[in-house]
């Protein structure tokens, strides 16, 4: 998903994957699965078949790990801010964990995509020989759209449409 905020000489793009459930709801999900699996294994253990318990425990551990990894991945954000002087790139989950600032006048956008249906294109921004990939969670059409909007922002033209 791309959210665009174009106000008073500064244009900001927030790029992140779509996430349909909150951390809290995921906790409830993990807890509900834990109760089902744990409940069954405890009843079985009560009748002497305790060997089901370690498998149930491992499974619950796997569920929690998988949900955590999924949510963490979906929480990743990429913020691209274009102002009069610079292009600022920030990556992180709940805060900016990595930031880069490129001089606007030396920055070049680059979009490459082969005709192959397997290729989802590469959008990047480069300055002084360094290149940074942008919008890696986006598909071909979205990268094209982000490319167009970034070009407009760099030209100083208004970025009108909220990207789809």
């Amino acid at each position: 998903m791309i959210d665009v905020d174009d106000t008073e000489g500064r244009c900001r793009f927030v790029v992140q994957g779509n996430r349909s459930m909150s951390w809290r709801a995921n906790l409830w999900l993990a807890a509900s699965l834990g109760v089902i699996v744990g409940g069954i294994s405890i009843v079985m253990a009560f009748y002497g078949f305790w060997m089901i318990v370690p498998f149930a425990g491992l499974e619950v551990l796997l569920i929690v790990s998988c949900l955590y990894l999924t949510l963490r991945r979906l929480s990743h954000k990429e913020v691209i801010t274009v102002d009069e002087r610079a292009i600022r790139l920030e990556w992180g989950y709940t805060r900016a964990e990595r930031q880069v600032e490129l001089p606007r006048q030396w920055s070049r956008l680059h979009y490459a995509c082969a005709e192959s249906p397997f290729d989802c294109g590469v959008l990047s921004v480069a300055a002084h020989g360094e290149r940074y990939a942008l919008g890696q969670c986006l598909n071909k059409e979205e990268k094209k759209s982000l490319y167009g909007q970034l070009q407009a922002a760099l030209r100083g033209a208004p970025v009108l449409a909220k990207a789809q």
Partner: protein
Amino acid sequence: MSADNAHDGVTHHAPGDHAPEHGHGDHDEHGPASGMMRWITTTNHKDIGSLYLWFSLIMFFIGGAMALVIRAELFQPGIQIVDPMFFNSMTTMHALVMIFGVVMPAFVGLANWMIPMMIGAPDMALPRLNNWSFWIMPFAFAILLSTLFMDSGGPAGGWTLYPPLSLQMGDSFAFVIFAIHFMGISSVMGSINIVATIFNMRAPGVTFMKMPMFVWTWLITAYLLIATIPVLAGAVTMLLTDRYFGTSFFSAAGGGDPVMFQHIFWFFGHPEVYILILPAFGIISSIIPTFARKPLFGYDSMVYATASIAFLSFIVWAHHMFTTGMPLAGSLFFMMSTMLISVPTGVKVFNWVATMWRGAMTFETPMLFAIGFVIMFTIGGLSGLMLAITPADIQYHDTYFVVAHFHYVLVPGAIYSIMAATYYWLPKWTGNMYDETLGKWHFWISTVFVNVLFFPMHFVGLAGMNRRIPDYSLQFADWNMVASIGAFGFGFSQLLFVWIVIKCVRGGKKATAEVWEGARGLEWTVPSPAPYHTFETAPDITKHMVR
């Protein structure tokens, strides 16, 4: 993250910084690796879906060949072709292969292909886990099938592995248990991935009560798998320790109870039956509205019926064990709870029929298979209702009537739904239309032979023919001969299916994005063939959801 608080610690660009490429996606921007490495290393849900489906097809022919060995032996009374031990291995392996190697992987393959596209997600939530959950399967089945070539032969005590019989098999026993563990790990990983995907990666607006029925049925199936696989894993591990480490969980000599294995096994096994059929319900609920050109009748009741079936599946397990002896109260409870399942199942059948009622129906191949499913699954359901009645079951138990019942549920039930799904979504997968004439031939030949194969089993079963025997009394000869003819006819007619699929993959009339006139849902909004990467940005769902 706000740009306002991002000024602290800003790294201003300077030449010579280390490699700045940064990303978190699991997919390769330029597409997959080439050659075999594409398939080994892929994390793309469509690739993995295809792998599951091809694997399932190969296993279908391996399991089918085992069925033909069984039917060839049963063509006439007497020991004709294979020795009884090998015959027993064939019945055991046929079941294990068809359940864990055909039906389950096929549904997982369909889930991989379709669930992300149906909910507007770019991929499964855990793509690398997805790759692992597939690639464990070929190893698991290589181990399982290799036992046939071991000195002690393959497992021959039935797929239920009841002790003490299963504990008497040779050294291949440990390999069988190991293979079952691998299958379980694969299933659990696949299920967790599906749950994580459905909960976390739905496009905005795709609320739970707007999800296609296939997604709903798979979500509930995944819950069943997550709940029951540890029970299976524990049960087979206890068999292993009884055999090799001197424990007595199921050994009466050491104070254990072999009947308890049956309880534990069927606590897994009966939900497993629904694991094998709930996704089929979802497929049929997608296909019938398309070709009836009407929305699914009673969507909400379909969801609640699916959930009810899943819940009830946990409290009916002992109907597999009426003959082991149990208190009257136990018999009554399990008989009634089993009969109760026919209510939500009846709701489903009613809703499918009501969807077709006064619809602008056309009868393309997927619809033919779907209608075949509704009719023949209902036959299997009705014989199941007969088996639920305790005093009747005591007569029918371990006869060919039971074999007829579960084969009607699984072959014209689960397998037909997989074939219907394949014909339905094949144009979306390949971008080409399949050969409709050949598809219809495939349906009619299969339907004739599947009934020639399984319907006579009701008669021989009611007349008293036991299951899992290589030889039988002369009075059963005629119907067994008929069933064997049906088996070979059905088996060889599936070669036509393979030909149709390969022909479609290689080319044909180009499919449109919508493919079917009445199709609704997000998967039909993407071009045919579906692009390698879809919906990395959530789509607008308002025009395309099924409801």
